[in-house]
């Protein structure tokens, strides 16, 4: 097992001892959300500013089913994944027709359309008040209504999601997406239909967002309107860039930092987004690869120093 996996498993075990269970759970949910975004952002080079579309749509559908159906949890998760993937297929199909700034604006504009639909459709979504009263039914004897049990459930979902994403980015598909990111013209010239592959990245990323959305609805028992709004879309981009979009684990680290800051520091200090802003500026100016790169550089610096020390004695 690689060191990254050992670190992840250690974090899964230690986290609920260090922070409130709800925060710990939210971190892994946000990490799943970030994994989905980063397939687009980091691997395909597409800045989607509308990931909350898929997150929120799945959260509403999942929340609605749990409220009214008494449906099996796994089935709800599966449906959430499907809703995320299908909404991403529809949105992605339109967005991949354009590139650059127009692409980004399309993801944003379509997100706004979904947001206003949710805002207006109060009979289902509750509009501004959100969709409250979402239960967490038991699953295979695990009483998910208990915070720790739900944490374990979400952490397991995350580990599975990470394993799948690792497989995706290491598969030929991962290489093809990176090739498209690096040079779309050449990727086409060697035989890849760039639009089709970008759409595929959307669909996979949307599925991850959908899973995260349903887990989020279950965590708080409510789907707030923001769950489908541009602030959520921005947060996941923010978190992923801070963690580092250049690696598989970047968004996981980003989720950690982002949720921890927003949930812990915000209690002490109302203006915490300022801190986040500063962190973001530092990343963009000095560590384009996010915290992952900062860590790499620190490790290199440290080992060079140690070697020098050895050489001098």
């Amino acid at each position, binding site marked *: 097992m690689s060191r990254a996996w050992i670190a992840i498993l250690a974090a899964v075990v230690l986290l609920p001892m260090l922070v409130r269970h709800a925060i710990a759970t939210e971190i892994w949910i946000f990490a799943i959300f970030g994994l989905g975004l980063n397939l687009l952002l980091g691997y395909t080079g597409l800045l989607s500013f509308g990931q909350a579309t898929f997150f929120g749509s799945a959260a509403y559908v999942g929340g609605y089913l749990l409220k009214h159906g008494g449906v099996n949890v796994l089935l709800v998760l599966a449906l959430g994944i499907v809703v995320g993937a299908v909404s991403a297929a529809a949105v992605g199909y339109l967005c991949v027709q354009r590139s650059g700034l127009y692409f980004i604006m399309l993801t944003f504009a379509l997100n706004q359309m979904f947001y206003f639909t949710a805002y207006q459709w109060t009979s289902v979504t509750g509009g501004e008040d959100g969709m409250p009263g979402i239960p967490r039914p038991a699953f295979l004897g695990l009483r998910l209504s208990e915070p720790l049990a739900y944490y374990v459930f979400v952490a397991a979902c995350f580990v599975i999601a990470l394993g799948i994403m690792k*497989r995706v980015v*290491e*598969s*030929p*598909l*991962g*290489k*093809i997406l*990176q*090739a498209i990111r*690096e*040079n779309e*013209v*050449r*990727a*086409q*010239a*060697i*035989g*890849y*239909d*760039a639009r089709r592959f970008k759409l595929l990245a959307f669909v996979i990323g949307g599925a991850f967002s959908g899973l995260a959305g349903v887990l989020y609805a279950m965590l708080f028992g409510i789907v707030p309107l923001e769950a489908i709004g541009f602030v959520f879309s921005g947060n996941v981009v923010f978190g992923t860039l801070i963690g580092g979009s250049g690696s598989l684990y970047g968004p996981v680290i980003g989720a950690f930092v982002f949720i921890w800051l927003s949930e812990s520091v915000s209690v002490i200090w109302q203006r915490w987004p300022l801190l986040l802003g500063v962190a973001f500026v530092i990343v963009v100016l000095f560590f384009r690869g996010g915290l992952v790169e900062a860590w790499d550089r620190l490790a290199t610096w440290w080992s060079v120093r140690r070697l020098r020390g050895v050489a001098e004695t």
Partner: protein
Amino acid sequence: MALLRTEDVTKTFGALTAVNRVTLAVEEGTLHSIIGPNGAGKTTLFNLLTGQAPPTSGRILFDGRDITGTPPQRIAHLGIARSFQRTNVFPALSVLDNVWVAVFARSRRRGLGWRPADRYPDLTERALAALGEVGLGDNARRAARELSHGEQRQLELAIALAAAPRLLLLDEPAAGLSPDETRKMVALVRGLKGRYTIVLIEHKMDIIMTISDRVSVMHFGSLIAEGTPAEIQRHAEVRRAYLGGIVAP
């Protein structure tokens, strides 16, 4: 039968006719060169052949099949590969991956595959073979962006070769190379001769004259002459239009 045939292919950009009623036939197994001064329309002609842009009029036939206006990703699957005049690789990917994605593109029998990319030994072997062919075998693990300009030109060629194409279009493979590197590149292209059907764009006359089976001369978008290297050298109009003082009479 000609593997590639164009019939009155024309491309205009506004008032400019970059390619003007070009009719060309490339025989299977030959090395067919296209020469002409800068701006003659050679690269534009390649862009039409590989679907980067549709011709304004005319037809393009590959192996008897009309491929006019077919998009690049389909052209690649028909067995036409090209290298670019301006290096056009995947900078952040490793040298091996640059070639590997080209090999994989042409071997889709497995669908997309769920296996990690490094567990396709046959494809990796073919990619390494293409790198070996251009002399980049020892650089497989480096990032493409770390290569020198000369090495990037070699990689450019390896990506095209990786597709195992029936028709290879090479757009000034020696562009920007030193005399020494140019000699190596010429030797490389000479080594490909006979194994591939090649259309070579080049404007260094000495290279063209020693390597080509046939030569077409392009000038202001039009073909003004075609023949064996020896015939082209004797051709009066070509000498006036292009060769000038380059080749001693």
